[in-house]
């Protein structure tokens, strides 16, 4: 009997906060340690190992050390790009580590006569055959699926694993309803295991023709929402799969990293002063010591401004009471008196999306690509490109050039400028 580990969405480098950075790496470290303890034959990482294509070098250094430790124990690691660690115009850290032999990127193939022919990577020890399709930004990998030569892949004999980093329409959770996704009918049928990434939720499913479709979800958290979900009881970890010529057992290995506390406060029908007082009183009653605190404040204030509530004070109280980290989500908070927000949402990205959608109609443009859904998509992409921070040791000029380059790429202006 052989075993492999299926890990996804590690998002190393996602957090700036030192506490969260530490926890993020701790989760990765624990998972790989567990893999060695379990003596898995190989590890599959189905995308978003890193949070960006060129992450902070400190983050890379830690990750490389750990992965090398695993590799030195004779456990190969197979990876694909995720939507975060892929860049269409820059070399990704994934390419560098692949070239260095730390792990093997398993997406190999070429387009012949408008058909994408993929090649299997065979694990030398177990003879398991792996093939995959990396993510591109915002679901652009769908084009690959459209032209994929499924028949050849289906005919291949042996134990086969299909690795992907895309949301599947059939298994999108409700909170990701608007996320770009591909239908599973694009996938070749009859593989023994479909190792998924991108959906930040643990999913283990099957459909006719597709035996085991598995998403482990993030190891720790790529977004504040992940922390919130963890605090609400969502388990984080990875899978260990035992197999011979078929899958024998699929086991979820939980990787607990810290204790969480989730506190939701509804400020509806209270004015800002009442809400502030009550909130302070309520959070003082919480046992937050050594816990990551997720505070969600929502509702419509009957009076005063949302900014009247002193969230810094609230954060300080929680920190003084021993909280490891405090995350305050007040995107669902509004005021009757001062309606500064036109749209409501669960997080920044959702609100941005809604605002763009609402505003796009009022912009008069003649270019099709700037209108409707396409316009919203482009604006979101541009916003994502422009919001990237300056890296350590990156000078201002390089930073500006990098951001400009990314913006040109999103707007497809590079050719025009040339």
């Amino acid at each position, binding site marked *: 009997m052989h075993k492999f580990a299926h890990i996804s969405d590690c998002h190393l480098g996602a957090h700036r906060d030192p506490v969260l950075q530490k926890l993020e790496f701790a989760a990765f470290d624990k998972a790989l340690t567990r893999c060695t303890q379990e003596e898995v034959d190989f590890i599959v990482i189905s995308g978003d190992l890193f949070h960006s294509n060129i992450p902070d070098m400190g983050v890379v250094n830690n990750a490389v050390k750990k992965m090398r430790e695993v590799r030195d124990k004779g456990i190969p690691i197979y990876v694909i*790009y995720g939507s975060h660690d*892929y860049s*269409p115009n820059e070399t990704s850290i994934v390419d560098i580590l692949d070239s260095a032999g730390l792990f093997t*990127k398993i*997406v*190999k*193939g*070429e*387009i012949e006569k*408008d058909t*994408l022919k993929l090649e299997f990577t065979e694990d030398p020890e177990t003879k398991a055959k792996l093939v995959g399709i*990396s993510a*591109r930004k915002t679901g652009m990998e769908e*084009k*690959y*699926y*459209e*032209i994929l030569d*499924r028949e050849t892949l289906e005919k291949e004999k042996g134990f086969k694993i299909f690795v992907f980093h895309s949301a599947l*329409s*059939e*298994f*999108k*959770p*409700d909170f*990701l*309803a*608007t996320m770009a996704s591909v*239908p*599973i*009918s*694009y996938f070749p049928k009859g593989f023994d295991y479909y190792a998924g990434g991108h959906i930040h939720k643990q*999913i283990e*499913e099957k*459909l*006719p023709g597709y035996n085991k479709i598995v998403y482990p979800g993030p190891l720790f958290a790529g977004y504040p929402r992940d922390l919130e979900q963890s605090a609400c009881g969502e388990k984080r970890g990875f899978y260990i799969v035992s197999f011979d010529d078929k899958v024998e057992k699929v086991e979820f290995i939980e990787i607990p990293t810290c204790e969480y506390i989730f506190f939701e406060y509804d400020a509806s029908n209270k004015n800002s002063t009442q809400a502030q007082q009550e909130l302070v009183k309520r959070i003082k009653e919480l046992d937050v010591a050594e816990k990551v605190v997720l505070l969600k404040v929502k509702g419509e204030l009957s009076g005063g401004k949302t900014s009247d509530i002193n969230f810094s004070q609230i954060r300080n109280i929680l920190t003084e009471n021993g909280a490891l980290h405090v995350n305050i989500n007040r995107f669902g908070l509004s005021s009757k008196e001062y309606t500064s927000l036109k749209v409501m949402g669960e997080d920044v990205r959702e609100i941005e999306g809604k605002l763009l959608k609402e505003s796009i*109609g009022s912009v008069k443009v003649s270019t099709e690509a700037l209108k*409707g*859904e396409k316009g919203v998509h482009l604006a979101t992409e541009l916003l994502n490109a422009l919001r990237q921070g300056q890296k350590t040791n990156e000078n201002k000029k390089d930073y500006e050039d990098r951001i400009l380059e990314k913006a040109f790429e999103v707007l497809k202006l590079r050719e025009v400028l040339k």
Partner: protein
Amino acid sequence: MEVAGQIVSGKVGEILIRQKSEETIELGDLLVVEAGDHFLILQVFDLRYGSQISPSARELLAGMKLEGFGAGLDFLEPELRNYVIAAVKAVARVSNDGKDVKIPKVLPDFFSSVRHIKKEDLTFLTKPSNPVYLGKVRSGSKTIDVDVYLNALDVFRHHIVVPATTGRGKSNLVKVMLWSMLGQDKFGVLVLDPHDEYYGRHEKGLKDHSKVKDNLLYYSSTPPAGTNTLVVNLRSILPWHFQGIVMFTDAQQDAIKLYYNRFKEDWIENIVRGTPVDGVAPRTLEVLQRKFDTSLGVYLDDAGNLQCRNKVFSDTAGTTTTKDIANALEKGKIVIVDTSRLLDEAELLIGSIVVSQIFHRYQSYKSTAELDTKPIVSVVIEEAPRVLGADVLASAGDNIYSTVAREGRKFKVGLIAITQLTSLIPRPILANMNTKIILGNEMAAERRAIIDSAAQDLSEDDRTIASLDKGEAIVSSNFTKFAVPIQIPLFEKYIETSASKKENEKTVFVG
């Protein structure tokens, strides 16, 4: 002018024309009487013989020929003595420049000559801004090279009914209509397809349209590559989605209410799992479990896992399916749901979930004054009496489809109801369906129901409707100047002429 006949007598609604010898006037023919600055379009609804010879003389002559008393016997100048009389009605009064089209209120000049209609007479049939293609104008069995379109923005919210018996080309018509609409984003269309005939899985279909990728979604329990799996999460189904579709007794409805109040979206799962709830008798629970088994195919296996026989309902997958469909409709896309492997109730239930979502969203858009920015949504439902039949509505009460039929126009939601049995649909609903695309129908009672509820006076067209051949139809609508006879093209031929090439974008592979 090539004269086809001459008006010889008649009254309003029945003008009699003597057919010119060597000319042929057919049932359903469109004829024209020119009258100075305008002309009248006449339509033939009956044909009969006329003769100047007395009946006894004709019978004697026939007897002599039949019994061999004079093989060479014939009438003297037969073209003068025997002829065909066509009964026609005036359907439109058109100014010569084609800009003014009215319902005729006067008779044409007595003894006027009539001619067959020409393409040039129909310049007033223009292509609207949001066209749905139906076919070409037909005069009798002759096709005139004039395209007939309806403005989808008008007709969709006021509902369309397509009455016809089997084999008269209903599906072909709907395919042609959908093809012509694909790519326009002003209207979303939900097609519940119980025969899996629109997408074209094994033959030509909507999948062959150049704009299919961005504008059409296909859901099936056996999806071809690139299309969507029809899998609906049980949590998407709410008690009121069953309203008027699956019959429950009062006790069962009370039990459902208790389960829903207690378990919210997980109410079906808990019923199927047999979770006891105070106030629900075990017997009622068992009956409900059986009902969900027969209607949804949902049951518990020996290991206690929830299973679905048809794989269309799931307790884990398909969380966003109905939402995705509703979103696509709201973006003006066509969504085809292949329900060929589902039982009637399951098909109607899936439709009910989606239509309810859209209807309620649009009601809310109306209250927030956003409705004008939304596309019209239309629902194609086959065998419409399943949900719109008088007996169904009497026994099971209203359902979302009948609600849409009655109130949909206020909220930009319409129906395209296809039926063989129009007479089963109550008159108030039928009267609300302002466009009827009438195909051939040999059943007199059905023709009567169609005629009685048509937008134009078709009281004399009973024979014409009975004689409609495959692909021939009459479009009677509040939005057409008169009941336009059309020839619907064969879908396969139509797409040859209207197809544009799919754009092949060069893809670069990054590993």
